[in-house]
């Protein structure tokens, strides 16, 4: 409890409180809060998937559209609400209340019933129309499905996606100054997340391969088994200090990659860092390349293409080619100008 005026000073910022620079003081306080959060997360005081569970709990109370329900689910709700009942409940907490309500209901039923009958007819017609739309939509979906471009899988080489890989230290250095959370995707069992946390970063991992995530959760508190783009969509605008991508962009189709970059542009804080580790094309053609490489809808970009794309998007980009040209690392720092708010842009 806080009694106004009877609080205590906390942390290093207390010393800075008396200084003349309010910005430095607030920055120090925020750094201490971030450290507190990091410690709380690593201590296991809260379930690692807490925020997601709270979100799901809230959405369970929202209308069907808020739950991301599909058309069939929405139609079930429409069907259930098609009949408008003119016989209103008459229960009351007061003794005479039920009698009065019942009398009013009897008096008004001829009128209310006439209205509700028409509303029910209208709702039935709407429901019928929607069922026809749903059937035709499903037919269309079946036809479109054969031409669908599959999502890219995670393409990793064991030698290049492990603790001692050459690109790990440059990545740790690049994200070391990030303010805010750091996400690694695809995080696998959390091998890089562990290293970022050990280096003092507030990191978590996202990976679309649930078996790897379940295995990693035993040693890393915050790993999320989700599609990377789906996860980023749920993150608050400018909510991330750094994003590390490894194994996820190499095989993406062009459109999928463009969408991901747009998402990153809105979720990365101004001054935030984007690190992309990608295999080279020669690694994909090697005999020991993983089977995901054959099944991917796209192929890796050349390092210079990444530089071109990111420079165009307002990043300051650095490219490092790995030994034997097997892979490369792109480090990009986002411009510090705040992103345009989506209010009017959309």
């Amino acid at each position, binding site marked *: 409890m*806080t009694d106004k*005026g*009877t609080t205590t000073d906390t942390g290093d910022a207390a010393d800075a409180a008396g200084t003349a620079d309010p*910005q430095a003081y*607030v920055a120090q306080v925020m750094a201490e809060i971030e450290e*507190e959060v990091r410690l709380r997360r690593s201590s296991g005081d809260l379930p690692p998937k807490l925020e997601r569970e709270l979100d799901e709990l809230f959405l369970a109370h929202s209308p069907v*559209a808020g739950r991301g329900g599909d058309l069939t689910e929405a139609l079930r709700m429409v069907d259930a609400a098609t009949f408008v009942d003119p016989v209103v409940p008459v229960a009351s907490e007061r003794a005479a209340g039920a009698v009065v309500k019942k009398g009013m209901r009897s008096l008004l039923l001829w009128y209310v019933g006439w209205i509700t009958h028409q509303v029910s007819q209208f709702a039935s017609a709407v429901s019928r129309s929607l069922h026809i739309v749903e059937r035709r939509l499903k037919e269309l979906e079946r036809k479109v499905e054969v031409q669908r471009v599959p999502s890219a899988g995670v393409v990793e080489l064991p030698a290049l996606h492990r603790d001692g890989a050459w690109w790990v230290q440059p990545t740790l250095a690049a994200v070391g100054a990030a303010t805010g959370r750091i996400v690694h995707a695809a995080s696998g069992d959390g091998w890089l997340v562990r290293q970022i946390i050990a280096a003092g970063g507030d990191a978590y991992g996202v990976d679309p391969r649930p078996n790897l995530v379940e295995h990693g959760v035993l040693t890393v508190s915050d790993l999320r088994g989700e599609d990377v783009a789906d996860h980023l969509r749920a993150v*608050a605008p400018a909510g991330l200090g750094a994003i590390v991508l490894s194994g996820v962009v190499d095989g993406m189709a062009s459109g999928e990659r463009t969408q991901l970059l747009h998402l990153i542009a809105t979720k990365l804080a101004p001054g935030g860092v984007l690190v992309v580790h990608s295999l080279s094309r020669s690694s994909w053609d090697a005999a020991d390349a993983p089977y995901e490489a054959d099944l991917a809808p796209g192929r890796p970009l050349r390092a210079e293409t990444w530089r071109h794309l990111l420079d165009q998007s307002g990043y300051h980009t650095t490219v490092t080619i790995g030994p034997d040209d097997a892979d490369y690392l792109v480090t990009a720092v986002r411009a510090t100008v705040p992103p*345009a*708010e989506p209010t009017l842009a959309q």
Partner: protein
Amino acid sequence: MSAAGPQGPPVAVHQFVPTLNPHDATGTHTLLLRDILRAAGWRSEIFAEAIHDDLAAEAYKHWMYPDHAAEGDVHIYQFSTSSAVAGFLAERGEPLIIDFHNFTGPEHFAAWEPHTEERAARAHDELVRLASRAQLGLADSRFNERCLQQAGYGRTTVIPVLVDYHRVGAPPDDRVAGELAASKREGGADILFVGRVVPSKAQHELVKALWVYRRLYDPEARLHLVGGTSSFAYLKALRGFVHELGLAGAVRIAGEVSDSALAAYFAAADVYLSLSAHEGFGVPLVEAMAAGVPVVARSVGAIRETVGDAALLLAGSDPLYTAAALHRVCTDGALRQRLVDAGRRRVPQLSLDVVAGQVVAAVATVAGTPR
């Protein structure tokens, strides 16, 4: 320019507004501005598409304007949402000033109020449509000014919302103050948020933060949500969420309250917390600063401009971050005092007298000097 000659009646500067409500920021701003315009020497009336019953004597329906029209009239449109008023003004020829308060984007309504989503989407089109008609765009923040410029407005200036923040210093409602004092005796911090219960204000994020805060730091903490609603689906979901988290005794959804009850809530608050997803200005933040309540807020829209350095600003609404920030503000005396002091320094910069002078000078560039 001045449309009235030296011998003629004073030029009228009339305001148009989608809805005139007594307890929302735009309604309060419109009423205060009407008084300021009159005091400056202009004739001024309010015309609205919808008028709250309590203000029936203060305004006319917008379609009644032709009965009041006179040569030399200048119009100010308080733009805060989509409205039939926009189309009405677009068809007229009087010099027009857009006073832009921003509007909540359709994405915030999609899951909750599909009909409102459509209306919100129309607001942007109306803003663009009026750009060619407007001689001046007033924005209550630089954030809003950028929106005007993106929509094609050539001449713009920033003038804060008119806030009568003295109402938070009014004598508090005895009954509400008594109830809050009784709760406080049980221990625990009182966290306050003031704003309409709608998805964009993200009261559910406040509830999430409270749940974490109680679990990690302060098991007796309470959250007070003050403000009416126009989104009953969201309110219903919020109530269900509160109940399911076992917070029914810790979260008070007070609804719309009187000025004296609002003063009681501010007097009892240990911290003001805002996790809104969208804010064009944030009047309650100014009220919190005026009441000496430290502010913790998610930095979206114009919030950083409104609070200056008088708040702890969060990048997102992560409940653990928020809880840690709340804990820090509630337990760190130096930080708390610094935020309160900075708030008290910030408020005079937004005072009615200061802003009134700015707005009169801006209006005069279109309507001429009042006599």
